[in-house]
């Protein structure tokens, strides 16, 4: 069963762990515009991906204002550093840790550090 792949026009599953969560985790890859099949407490919610979102990454379920908590597993996992619209990819570019000073300084796609010059 090719559950982990998804192409244009097909629904990609995403899992909301806790009813309090304003994000869900993609169980496949979603291309921009792809319809999301939400599993978990808010199953059935109409949602389309606004960005390309890789498997294991997070999608916003509702509008999240600047400085608002981003919640997954029912716990606060970070704060929004700008307004996030439903269907947006949530990652290093719009969500920062409450504690980790390096949070947000990494390459958005590879996660590689950018402040150390290896050259």
């Amino acid at each position, binding site marked *: *069963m090719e*559950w*982990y792949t998804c192409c244009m026009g097909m629904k990609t599953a995403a*899992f909301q*762990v806790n009813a309090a969560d304003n994000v869900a*985790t*993609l*169980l496949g890859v979603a291309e921009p515009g792809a319809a999301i099949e939400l599993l978990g407490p808010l199953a059935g919610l109409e949602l389309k991906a606004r960005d390309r979102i*890789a*498997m*294991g*990454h*997070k999608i916003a379920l509702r509008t999240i204002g600047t400085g608002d908590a*981003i919640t*997954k*597993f029912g*716990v*606060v*996992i*970070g704060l929004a550093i700008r307004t996030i619209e439903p269907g947006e990819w*949530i*990652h*290093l570019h719009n*969500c*920062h*840790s*409450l*504690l*980790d*000073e*390096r*949070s947000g300084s*990494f*390459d958005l*796609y*590879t*996660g*590689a*550090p950018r402040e150390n010059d290896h050259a």
Partner: protein
Amino acid sequence: MPELESGGREWTGFLRKDGRKGIRNHILVIYTVECASFVAHAIGHAEPDVHVIGFPGCYDNDYAIRLMVALGTHPNVGGVLTVGLGCEYTQPSRLADAVRQSGRPAESFFIQENGGTESSVALGRKLVGQLRAQSEADAVRVPMTLADLTIGAECGGSDGTSGLAGNPVVGRAYDFLVERGGTAIFEEVVEMIGLRELMVARAASPEAAQELGACYDKMLAYCRAVRQYSVAPGNFAGGLTTIEEKSMGAFAKGGSKPIEGVIRVAEPPPHPGLWILDSVPDTHFMQFGYTNPNDTEGIMDLVATGAQIVLFITGRGSVIGSAISPLIKITGNTETYRKMTGDMDFNAGRVLSGEVTLDQAAEELLDLVVAVAGGEPSKPERLGHREYFLMYKHQDVPALEAGCRA
């Protein structure tokens, strides 16, 4: 009746003179300084039952000595050879004495007192042969069940699937193990950021609640002081955005049972049930650098509690194994499982695709644990992996502070 109690899960293990029960009968070669590491590895070369560990530092460290003694008296170890160069602070003969007190045969020597590389390797191989013969003569075969097992759990190379599938499957398997009288340990306190209330709420007693709260507070102060949080580029690439997110996923491997308390490195759990291992350094003028240098360091800490098997959950995939205790590798990412089938023991991603329930996956995982306990090699064992990592660190253990200095 025994059939019912063990759920048919019974195998034959090795009863040591100190009463501990092992699932392997290894000879352990321990070097006491980096300068002796080549000779130690040459002694163990091409000997399937000989595992090698060692401490790189020349200056001794109580924490590292406790770790070496704990590993030398591990249930899976039947005999120990300690090898030093001859200049270092840590004394091989003192380590061997400590191992002998556990009833296991042990030998030691300094390379400088035995010529050079060739003569030391020859001596070491001869001593290993004697230790093996003694260990085989000493080994008492006994039936074992899940109640005799201590299992450790570590995650590494975590991704967005780890907190949804890999760790929850281990957590459920831990629930089942504890219900059957076994002992379950998880660590990575540095990956419990933001979870103080959840941890304390899981305490089995007021004492445990106090230990868990203190453990959390120390960890957070340490992470802030060294400005290191246990989240890496691969985690980010795999969809984890912050240490807080990674933490909640990691904590899922602790299942849902009450937490009996906090143990320190090299300390066996006082009684069965679920425990948290604190491997974070205590306050010390040297501060000892980083909290979490790599996955293998954490696995060694778990092995040193007496864990006969360690479960390793990796969403992105990893190619490590472990000295002394078999590592069973679990991934919640079906793609990783397909790409790295030769290294991965268990695909927990089937829970996400709906192929199996969490309970079914957890029971299957326990079946695999029992098979490995019964002698079937895990994938890392089959591939010959024996990673180890011992570092300088400081933890307060007043009763043991004397260590093994000469």
